[in-house]
């Protein structure tokens, strides 16, 4: 099967990127190296092609009511021109996907879904739309290119290319605008890296030249193109969940500690809310963050031990480039998820001592 391409695939190849199959797309995993790309985002700026992600448009007088039923968060709190994180849950209280909802207008929402879940989500949305007469759901994934420009100097690098005042866009806000003269873009102050930055939704047919334009504009601040490898280390350092690792059809959002986007008291509930409530008191494992002592690295699927017992499993792990330490996220049985607890990760039969920590692994020094 041929892998799908984004408008920027030829640019990645021209830059010498290592290309991999990611969710059926031919995507760059790294250009100059994960450490260097990671550091560029933490210290200056990085440009990511995330066009593989899906966009689903919800429009009509019942769009809000539909999203309130489909999503775990309280979508009524989303003002026009702002965005909100949420889970899409199944009737067993598991997570179908985690999504970002952008409110474009009164009855117009753009929901960004994971590439790997796009077909599943679109089918799910249609099958569970409580108001098909009043809410039209359209998969626009093939209409949009998506670039992320992330890092403390992202704003400075981008400002000269856009016709809006980037400073005036609040965190998790977005506006319509033009990028290098390409009209019809959404410019959003959102991202996945723990840094300030922007995501640019660009009409797909006009997008290709913008890759080189943005890199050229960013050269003065040290912007680098960044692949999926550093995208993963960046998100892991700030403990953002990744579907297929921390989240799955069997894991409740409360197990993933996503209580803040799981509004169980929302009027009318949402798909899965009753199941999440029913299973809440019998959940056996909850997500925790571990820092490893020594240079061994925990990886997805490794077991975690304490007091001679199996207490859970790792969902993501890497050496955190900003910290120079091994870090993991893991589902652990209470009370072992308590910060300060000493545990052991079984790294292919060898022990790696680790300690539970609270909050993000990487915290930005305040400027």
């Amino acid at each position, binding site marked *: 099967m041929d892998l799908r391409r984004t408008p920027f695939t030829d640019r990645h190849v021209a830059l010498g990127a290592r290309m991999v199959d990611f969710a059926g797309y031919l995507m760059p*995993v*790294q250009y100059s*190296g*994960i*450490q260097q790309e990671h550091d560029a985002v933490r210290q200056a700026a990085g440009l990511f092609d995330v066009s593989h992600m899906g966009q689903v448009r919800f429009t009509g007088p019942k769009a809000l009511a539909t999203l309130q039923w489909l999503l775990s968060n309280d979508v009524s709190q989303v003002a026009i021109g702002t965005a909100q994180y949420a889970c899409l849950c199944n009737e067993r209280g598991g997570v179908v996907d985690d999504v970002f909802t952008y409110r474009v207008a009164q009855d117009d929402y753009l929901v960004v879904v994971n590439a790997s879940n796009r077909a599943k989500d679109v089918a799910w949305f249609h099958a569970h739309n409580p108001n098909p007469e009043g809410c039209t759901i359209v998969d626009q994934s093939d209409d949009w290119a998506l670039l992320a420009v992330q890092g403390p100097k992202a704003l400075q690098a981008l400002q000269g290319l856009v016709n809006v005042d980037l400073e005036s866009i609040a965190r998790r806000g977005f506006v319509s605008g033009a990028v290098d003269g390409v009209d019809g873009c959404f410019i959003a102050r959102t991202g996945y890296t723990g840094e300030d930055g922007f995501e640019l939704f660009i009409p797909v047919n006009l997008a290709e030249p913008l890759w080189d334009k943005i890199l050229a504009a960013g050269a003065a601040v040290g912007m680098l193109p960044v692949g999926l*490898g550093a995208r993963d*280390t960046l998100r892991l350092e700030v403990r953002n969940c990744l579907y297929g690792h921390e989240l799955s059809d069997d894991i409740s959002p409360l197990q993933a500690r996503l209580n803040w986007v799981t509004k169980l008291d929302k009027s009318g509930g949402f798909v899965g809310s009753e199941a999440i409530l029913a299973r809440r008191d019998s959940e056996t494992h909850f997500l925790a963050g571990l820092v490893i002592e020594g*240079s*061994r*690295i925990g*990886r997805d699927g490794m077991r975690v031990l304490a007091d001679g017992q199996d207490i859970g499993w790792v969902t993501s792990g*890497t*050496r955190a*480039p900003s910290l120079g330490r*091994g870090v993991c996220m893991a589902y652990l049985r209470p009370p072992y998820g308590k910060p300060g607890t000493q545990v052991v990760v079984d790294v*292919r039969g*060898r022990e790696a001592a680790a300690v539970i920590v609270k909050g993000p692994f990487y915290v930005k020094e305040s400027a």
Partner: protein
Amino acid sequence: MNFPKNLVYTAHDEWLLVAGDEVTLGISDFAQDALGEIVHVELPEVDAEFAAGAAICEVESVKAVAEVYTPVACVVIAVNEALDGAEDALNSDPYGAGWLVKLRVTDASGLAGLADAATYQARVGA
């Protein structure tokens, strides 16, 4: 990429410097490039014995872990302790500071059939 002519190379992208019955072993320039930035190395104990084809070390990058195999039956006579905290030597100097282990060969038959630099280079297409 660089493939020194004084070395021989395995099907798993290790290099060997053979000097009598002593062998120094590491991973090739091709292997380090494919793995990316190496951040952890799991070395064997000195005096440990290995059969030909056994996994003798693990080399781990940010994204992946790879086993390193010995093509010859051997006893470990030295390991590169200096890699601890300086694993990037495997990327920057895979044939020098990035060496992994020194071995005493106990059965040399595994050395037959290893590739010379030109053959190896042609195989990896670099």
